[in-house]
């Protein structure tokens, strides 16, 4: 049966995590969910290959707690500081040093637990987990094996299905527990000189290990669950969720079984984050968007590979072994890890230097307790921010936008605020605003790999532009030209740009009529074709008019005038 495995930082994976963190540079925040979904389609197809067997996927996620200091010491947490520059005596496991729990890390774990509907254990314990590895200076990791800080929650996530990726499917995955634990240091293997260098900057940084029950059936679901978790952690501010800096690391437990039968033997697929290696290796030729998609779909990619492998084994009458597998980039397969870490006995023991971690509520705090020494669960509950799911629902109900659009808004850091900012300042309907924000603005941002906060066009400026459009002062194509101008960041307002470049809508019907006539006159072949019954040619003429008016003419009006002009007898022009 399924049980909590002794995972976490194991010798082999620790080294790999290293390389990953060193090697990857791709920015991950703000992957458009559509892109992700498109990519995931492929995966869905091949998990459905075997109807009798279904996949079962559980996840173990290590989330680095966003805190200024480490879990048990006061050294700074900083991703890019020089090697071994942020190491206290405790981090280096100097004899006689003792752990002192970081209150901020406790609060982060409690908030995360509350946001995921967990039961917060008012009393939790710390344990030592022993293994020898050079980047684990004490020879053990302090974790919460017996009695973790939070248990029994639920992560609700949604993913988009259907040909157009516009059907939202809601899913749940149970959360077994959240435990506080220390991160390991980093080993850098120099095979040339055959030596290993140790950087302890990361040693002792606070992690939340989240154990997700095997409620997912394929990599796509796993990827969607991880993405939702990432959004929640970011909304809470308990983890920055930047996978390229190793702030979020994922291990998957994968098995196959026939429905109604007991779960199959599972394998653990480690090394998933190293998929970024893959990303890195093949990415330079690809567009940034594709690169992001590949990086993000790593869980999906690995998990589904492993599901397929197991299904083939079971259907071939073979037996799936309980083992730890890693992804081999060269062969594109999961392979058993050479290390015998599956057999490792971690010799868990209570951490004797830390008393039980006791949490309180306002009512239960003992008198005369130093307020700096207590963490109040009810107080943290009240401080929880709006979670992504609620934000999406609010966007849909308040602004009447499509659910899939709410996903895109929420997925992009800062985009919800941007959208709401525009809506509040413009007379344009939210339904119109959303198109401009998601298609035009986001498109430009992605093209140039910018975040929302880096946008040269403020919500204010976009709102003004949309007001001009709404008031009929400019046409939609002209508005796009104005946006391009705004994007250059000249500091001019939309109105100024319209005036300076003469982009205002042509209100004079006769003026448009003249342009239409010129176009008809200069395109005799098209006019003949039209008259011969090829109605499609009209669009070409409309395009010509738009070009000559710089899009300032209302396309509907242009169409009407053209039709009117063309409906007159032929050679009309010659007779005049």
């Amino acid at each position, binding site marked *: 049966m399924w049980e909590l495995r002794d995972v976490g930082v194991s010798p082999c994976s620790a080294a790999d995590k290293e390389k990953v963190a060193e090697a990857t540079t791709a920015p991950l925040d703000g992957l458009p969910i559509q892109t992700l979904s498109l990519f995931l389609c492929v995966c869905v197809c091949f998990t459905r290959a075997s109807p009798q067997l279904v996949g079962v996927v559980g996840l173990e996620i290590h989330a680095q707690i966003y805190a200024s200091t480490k879990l048990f010491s006061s050294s700074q947490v900083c991703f890019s500081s020089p090697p071994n520059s942020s190491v206290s*005596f405790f981090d*280096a*496991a*100097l*004899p*006689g*040093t*003792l*752990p*002192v*729990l970081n209150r901020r890390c406790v609060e982060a774990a409690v908030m995360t637990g509350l946001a995921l509907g967990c039961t917060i254990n008012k009393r939790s314990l710390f344990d*030592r987990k*022993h293994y*020898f590895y*050079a980047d684990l*200076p*004490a*020879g*053990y990791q302090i974790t919460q094996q017996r009695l973790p800080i939070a248990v029994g929650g639920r992560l609700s996530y949604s993913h988009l299905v259907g040909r157009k990726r516009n059907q939202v499917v809601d899913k749940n995955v149970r959360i077994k527990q959240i435990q506080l634990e220390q991160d390991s240091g980093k080993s850098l293997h120099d095979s040339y000189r055959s030596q*290993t260098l*140790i950087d302890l900057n990361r040693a002792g940084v606070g992690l939340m290990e989240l154990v997700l029950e095997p409620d997912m059936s394929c990599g796509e679901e796993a990827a969607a669950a991880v993405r939702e978790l990432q959004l929640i952690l970011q909304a809470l501010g308990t983890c920055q969720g930047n996978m390229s800096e190793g702030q979020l690391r994922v291990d998957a437990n994968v098995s196959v079984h026939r429905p109604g039968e007991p779960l199959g033997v599972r394998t653990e697929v480690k090394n998933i984050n190293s998929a970024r290696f893959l990303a890195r290796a093949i990415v330079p030729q690809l567009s940034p968007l594709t690169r992001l998609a590949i990086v993000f779909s790593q869980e999906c990619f690995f998990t589904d590979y492993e599901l397929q492998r197991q299904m083939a084994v079971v259907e071939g009458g073979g037996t799936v072994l309980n083992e730890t597998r890693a992804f081999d980039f060269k062969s594109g397969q999961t392979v058993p890890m050479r290390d015998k870490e599956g057999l490792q*006995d*971690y*010799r*868990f*023991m209570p951490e*004797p*230097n*830390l*008393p039980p971690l006791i949490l309180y509520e306002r009512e239960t705090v003992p008198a005369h307790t130093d307020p700096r020494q207590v963490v109040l669960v009810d107080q943290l509950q009240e401080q929880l921010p709006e979670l992504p799911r609620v934000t999406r629902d609010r966007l849909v109900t308040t602004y009447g936008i499509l659910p899939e659009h709410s996903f895109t808004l929420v997925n992009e850091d800062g985009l919800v605020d941007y959208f709401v900012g525009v809506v509040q300042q413009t007379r344009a309907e939210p339904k119109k605003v959303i198109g401009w924000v998601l298609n035009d603005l986001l498109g430009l941002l992605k093209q140039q790999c910018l975040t929302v906060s880096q946008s040269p066009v403020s919500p204010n400026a976009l709102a003004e532009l949309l007001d001009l459009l709404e008031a009929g002062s400019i046409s939609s194509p002209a508005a796009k030209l104005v946006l391009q101008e705004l994007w250059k960041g000249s500091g001019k307002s939309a109105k100024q740009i319209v005036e300076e470049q003469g982009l205002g809508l042509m209100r004079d019907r006769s003026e448009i009529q003249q342009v239409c006539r010129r176009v008809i006159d200069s395109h005799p072949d098209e006019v003949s074709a039209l008259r011969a019954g090829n109605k499609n040619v009209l669009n070409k003429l409309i395009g010509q008019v738009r070009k000559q008016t710089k899009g300032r003419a209302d396309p509907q009006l242009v169409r009407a005038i053209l039709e009117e002009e063309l409906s007159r007898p032929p050679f009309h022009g010659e007779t005049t």
Partner: protein
Amino acid sequence: MVSPGQRQRHLDLGTGGGRGCEGASSGAVCLCLCRCPRPCGGGRVSPTELCTRCLEQVKRTGFLNAFVTVTEEQALRQASEAERRFLEGRSLTASPLTHRDRSPPPGKPRGPLDGIPFSVKDNFCTENIETTCASHMLKGYFPPYTATVVQKLLDQGAVLIGKTNLDEFAMGAGSTDGVFGPVRNPWSYSAQYRERPGVDPRSDWVITGGSSGGSAAAVASLGSFLALGSDSGGSTRNPGALCGLVALKPTYGLLSRHGLIPLVNSMDVPGILVRSADDAATALGVLRGLDVRDSTTIPPPAAPPHLPDDIDIARIRVGIPKEYHAPGLSAETLCQWGRVADLLERGGASVEQVSLPHTQHSIVCYHVLCTAEVASNMARFDGLQYGHRSEVNDSTEALYAATCHEGFNDVVRRRILAGNYFLLKRNYERYFMKAQKVRRLIAQDFARVFRDGVDVLLTPTTLGDAVRYCDFIQEDNRTRSAQEDVFTQPVNMAGLPAVTVPTALSSRGLPISLQLIGRASHDWQLLGVAKWLEQRLEFPAIQLPQDVSQAEREAGVPGRVRTSVL
């Protein structure tokens, strides 16, 4: 506010009710009450003189092998600073001093321990002073920080004489199993022991007990007024008892463990080795307190600045746990036990027999819990960051294995192996969990007795007086630890305070001591009873020979005293 009279009492350190004077038959050393430095003038011995005398005594008794490192230069520097404070303080007598005065301006004596020479067991970290744990593993290790308790003494102006010898990583009960060799009990060279018929001084020297044997020997041989030991299963009380000292194992958490290289984290406490209960109270007052660097420290209870001289024990209920009448208990110790119980009863205390039924299982559980934590704590000595590193570097694993093999002695390695065995997944419930459960039962035994109204328990500290080294090493460390810790480790299992008090000399002329166990955080009450006993027992002071170098020659060992490179 402290009155001048009180202040004077603070300085009673090292007096032992006047024992120091009588015992100073050695012309070279006279460390006694009347000569202690005093902040208000009138002191007859200056801090520098006191320090010099202690250093001389340490050198003279080097053959005891009590010290691993003597910090002579630093000690003299500290002493001269203390002296300057005393000299300047004479013209500043108006401002009172308190314990809280952590860093008073120079020019004022800092408190009762200012200028007092002390020693520290070599498993407390001392910044830039080698800290070895008497292990090859940490030879040449100079910690970058100082243990909280040591720092507190330094902040008070106390003068660090040196680091004392021990069993490797404090694993032992004899101070015989360190890389620097065994510590000799100063009483081996006392007139009381040597002047008995049939004693051969070359071969009949006795052990100090352990593992804080060096600290005990340093205080007993008058090389220090105070020494810090550590006590995980009796390591302070056992050598304290065999060396005729007052040795306090405080309540768990009352003193910070930060900087104490751990043996059994859940039982370790810094221990205090002194020559009187008053001195113990003074040191405890300075050392206690919450430490932000040690999450297991507890808020200290309100405590008097010193013990009263006229202690009333009429309302004290003394329990005699019948289970401590253990096999192997010497007739003389049993006799002392009865004598002291009678003494207390005559003094008005009510003395009753009590039962601590789980005591018999304690030593086995202690062994399991101790080795498990040892296995865990020793995992960090992999030779990568500090300490010994083997030349074998075929692979990381080979490096680890060779480093541990070369760095640790058999005792440490055996405990690591045993502990890892107990912690294996398949064994955890059978051994570790069960031992923890029994540990709780042992703690509950004590709790019940104290809840029933008993204030202190009176027990033997050791089975008998100190044994000869040549006899001691007939048994292995494991057997000896099981024998020697039998009366002391249950207290560690329960986290209670306990103090050992010397009661008399045995027929061999060696100290016999008894142990008082108190309620958690009632350390001062315990010391009060200890002082009451001390006042009535008239335990004799050690009589070291006039010419200690004669003893050295007879000992046939060159003194092993190293001077710090500072």
